[in-house]
């Protein structure tokens, strides 16, 4: 895999190049945007800060097969416009500031997957020695209990109450989506999306798998439904609409603000969709951040589709 990196900060650029190189990629590191176009022949991936997002978007539009990766220290809204405009940009990596590279583990995971590696297990998002629990969600009645269980799990870490509540809310949102939005009948029609107030009991083959885990530094919440119906536009447009002003979208039975809730409650969101097989959503929260820092810290978004 050949990667072209445009990074104006030398130190950051070297670190990013090293991380890509560690996964076996061949790397071209550039500081001058004017040199990018010439370096892209034969390249698979072009990476840059969102500041140079226009250039990246222009290049991926011009070259079929070239994929774009952005990193940013700014709010997601600024990067999102490039994801909306270009289907070849599926990844935004948040970083602390312009002097810092993106998280090393996240970058190497991205590099591996761009090179063809499969989705990592939950442990891939966490350090060795993490703890996890599986929570069964079979019916509407299980939903609130599951959210409470998530809250208890997080609370047991001694973190601020608001963090535990926030993660429980995130869990509630993801469960709602997996239970009500994802299931379809034999004709491909949504089974439960029309009435979110209905008490439902999912059949065995419809049940989502919910896991919450932590290594003490990060929290991970992962839900996987067996339908694989989530589309890129659901994520990108939903997020764009939410971040642009929070207009409701009632067309799918809900409020259309679930993505915004997920974004606000996490530091990184990973969407893995195997069409018609499964949708896996993993939300991460960095426990070393307080809520004030969470609001201002740039966030990551990754969308993978098989």
């Amino acid at each position, binding site marked *: 895999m050949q990667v072209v990196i445009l990074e104006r900060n030398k130190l950051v650029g070297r670190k990013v190049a090293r991380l890509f190189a560690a996964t076996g990629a061949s790397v071209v590191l550039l500081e001058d945007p004017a040199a990018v176009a010439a370096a892209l022949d034969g390249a698979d991936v072009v990476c840059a800060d969102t500041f140079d997002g226009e250039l990246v978007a222009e290049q991926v539009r011009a070259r079929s097969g070239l994929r774009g990766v952005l990193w940013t220290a700014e709010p997601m809204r600024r990067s999102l416009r490039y994801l909306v405009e270009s289907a070849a940009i599926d990844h935004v990596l948040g970083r602390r500031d312009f002097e810092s590279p993106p998280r090393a583990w996240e970058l190497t995971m991205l590099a591996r997957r761009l090179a063809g590696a499969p989705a990592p297990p939950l442990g891939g998002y966490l350090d060795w020695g993490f703890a996890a629990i599986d929570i069964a969600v079979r019916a509407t*009645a299980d939903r*609130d*209990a599951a*959210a*409470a269980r998530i*809250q*208890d799990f*997080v*609370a*047991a*870490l*001694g*973190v*601020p*109450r*608001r*963090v*535990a*509540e926030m993660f*429980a*809310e995130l869990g*509630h*949102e993801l469960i*709602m989506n997996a239970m009500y939005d994802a299931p379809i009948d034999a004709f491909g029609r949504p089974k439960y999306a029309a009435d*979110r*107030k209905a008490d439902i009991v999912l059949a065995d083959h419809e049940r989502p798998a919910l896991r919450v885990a932590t290594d003490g530094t990060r929290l991970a919440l992962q839900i996987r439904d067996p339908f694989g119906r989530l589309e890129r536009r659901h994520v990108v447009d939903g997020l764009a609409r*939410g971040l642009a*002003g*929070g*207009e*409701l979208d*009632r067309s799918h039975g*809900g*409020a*259309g*603000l*679930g993505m*915004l*809730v997920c974004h*606000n409650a996490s530091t990184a969101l990973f969407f893995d969709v195997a069409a018609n097989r499964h949708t896996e959503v993993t939300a991460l929260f960095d426990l*070393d951040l*307080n*809520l*004030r820092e969470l*609001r*201002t810290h740039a966030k990551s978004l990754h969308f993978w589709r098989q």
Partner: protein
Amino acid sequence: MQSVDRAVNRPSRPSQPVVPGAPKLVVEKFADRGVACIRFVGTIDESFEGKKLGATATADTLVLDLGGVKRISSFGIREWIDFVTTAAGHARSLILIECTPKVVDQLNMVANFAGGGRVFSFYAPFRCDYCNTEQRVLLQVDRDWEAIKSTRIAERPCLSCKESMYFDEDGATFFSYVIGQDRFQLEPEVEAFLAAKLNYAVSDLNRKLRVDKVVEDRTTYLRLAGDLDESFPRDKLAEGLEGTVILDLGAIGKIEPVGAVQWRSFIAAIAPVAERVYLASAPPSFVEKLCTRDDLNPVVQLLTVLMPYSCASCGTTSQHAVDVGAHYDVLKFATAPEVRCPGCKQAMQCYAGETVMTLLPTMPRPTAGPELVKSIAVLRDRALLAAGPRRAPKAGTAPPVAQPAARASVLVPILVALLAIVLAAGGYLVYQRIAARLPAGGLGALTHRSAEVRPAWIASEVPAAATCSEAGKALSCVGVSSVSARQDDAEDEAADAALDAAANALAVRITSPKWRLAVLPVYTAARDAKLAAFDRDPTSTIARRDVREARHAVAQALRATSGGAVPAAPTSRYWEEYQGADGRRHLAFAQITLGATEIAKLIDGYAQPASALGATVVGLFPLIAWRYPKIERGAVIVGLAQGPLQELGLAEQYVVLAIDGRDVTDAASFAKLADDEHGALIEHGGTLRVKVQIADGAPREFATAIKPPPEVDPAGAVKRPRTNPAATPGASGVNVWDKFGGGKGSGRDDPTQ
């Protein structure tokens, strides 16, 4: 900024267990004339039926109290938007108060979340990393606008550990919605509603008293809206008043002690020149503070009282003006007349506090006829119209009229019809409290009693009630037991109830502003809550036990602190035995009488302050046992000036229990112990330890090291003072980061940050 203690949290606690069937969202409705409030407590999610609730939210001004909103799911947002949009269509204005950070998040994120309403107040989250606590600080757009606009909220001392706590949000994000709306102030009616009904503090500027006046023939109607405080225009108001004076008090907010003094002075000035002074729509707080027997007389009469009622069927809570004259025979038994819910027509339950209910029977029966009572509504409308369009009643809520002169003729028949309905409903009057507190099927047959005839001093047989009445300058307090299986048990309970009523009567008579400001808040909420819980469900074992145990604790504290002024045993006793379906049951009565000398001695004893080390204290008042049942003696801080105790971190309303291990029994012993101990420490050095009761829970000890004066050697050089390492502030364990060489970094001093 105002700290609010409702949200002080330790590191995250386990979530509440999910109780099947338990409501996730509790919605309470309050209404008073044109102002209505809907309070939300819990989670707003898909189960919230927004449109349905919004359709019922009819009011001139609708206040949404969001201080209890814990969570809003994304589907809940959809329902909320439906609610707020529908509600906005039914109200002239929509005001959001006490928005939790969760609600503020939604306001910032979701378009039209406020439905065109305006946010008046909201909580800003603060966090202390030292003691790992979170606190919320209430911000108001009128009072804190500059801070909000700057998006920077200064760090402030943590209420728990006194270290610095920081605003735990990004200001630019958190305040973005509120900054986008204009700064505004509440209308006087809304301020009064919030202050009186929700005990919600709005800024002093907003609560300034307004007076609307209407004169008709020899009747002068004055409508007072706002707080009674030092700004009360006593002389200006009294000037020229004569004939019949009607004082409409329905929009009175808070009553400051100094305002109460001004009020009494105002009444004293107009009583000699007016034929009659009628107090109308007096809120319970006004009755408690300014309608004692001394305040009323043949000239000054209480005409109507605003009583709080709650509907168990639809959850609506509203105030109803109760005509004291029309319902005198009911009120004299400390019971409230039955009222039907304006929304669902079901019978409502009155939840007025015990203090008001025990005061009402002592009121003289007003001499005014029903015509006068009817005319108040007409005069009020006229006063509001004269005050201008902003304060006029909303079209549709009152019959429209072209001219004030014609208004009365149109309104009177309608009001007469309305009154007829109310009076017809009054035909169903039942003594709810008696019925509610008796076992189903009644007590059964009377089989024994301690005397041939029930004594004359028993005026009420409401189980578990207690009342006081004046007999000349003496006080007679009668307590009634609840229905009990044992006679001795019932007699003890009745005696405790009588002593509790006596203590309450003493509290009413203590007029010291400092005392009232510092002591009443310590126990009033706890007492009212327990009595209200018992009132709501007299069959609840827990509620009954709470009241009984509190009264017992009060009785013990009263006996312990009265210096013998309170008799050890009741003055009179009486009991009755019944045989019913549940077996043998007993109802006991006890009377405590206090002479004028004892009353004066007790009031003087409890209100007499003593001072030491900058603190002014009074002796522990027995009713404090409603909140702190284990405390019998101590001293309550009513004033705190610069001095060692202030530096130690003590505050007003703290109850001092001991100083350096020696018990504080009253105000004088506090002053002596504090002075002695501090004097000795100044001389020899050591640690000043003060044990206090601050909030519910175990008493807390405050300690500080006091260094002796430096020794001077014969050559005149100052030697380093000898200090006890264990007594240094650093050894308190509070600031552990600094101890390990921290303090170099800025901000929170946490080495992990």
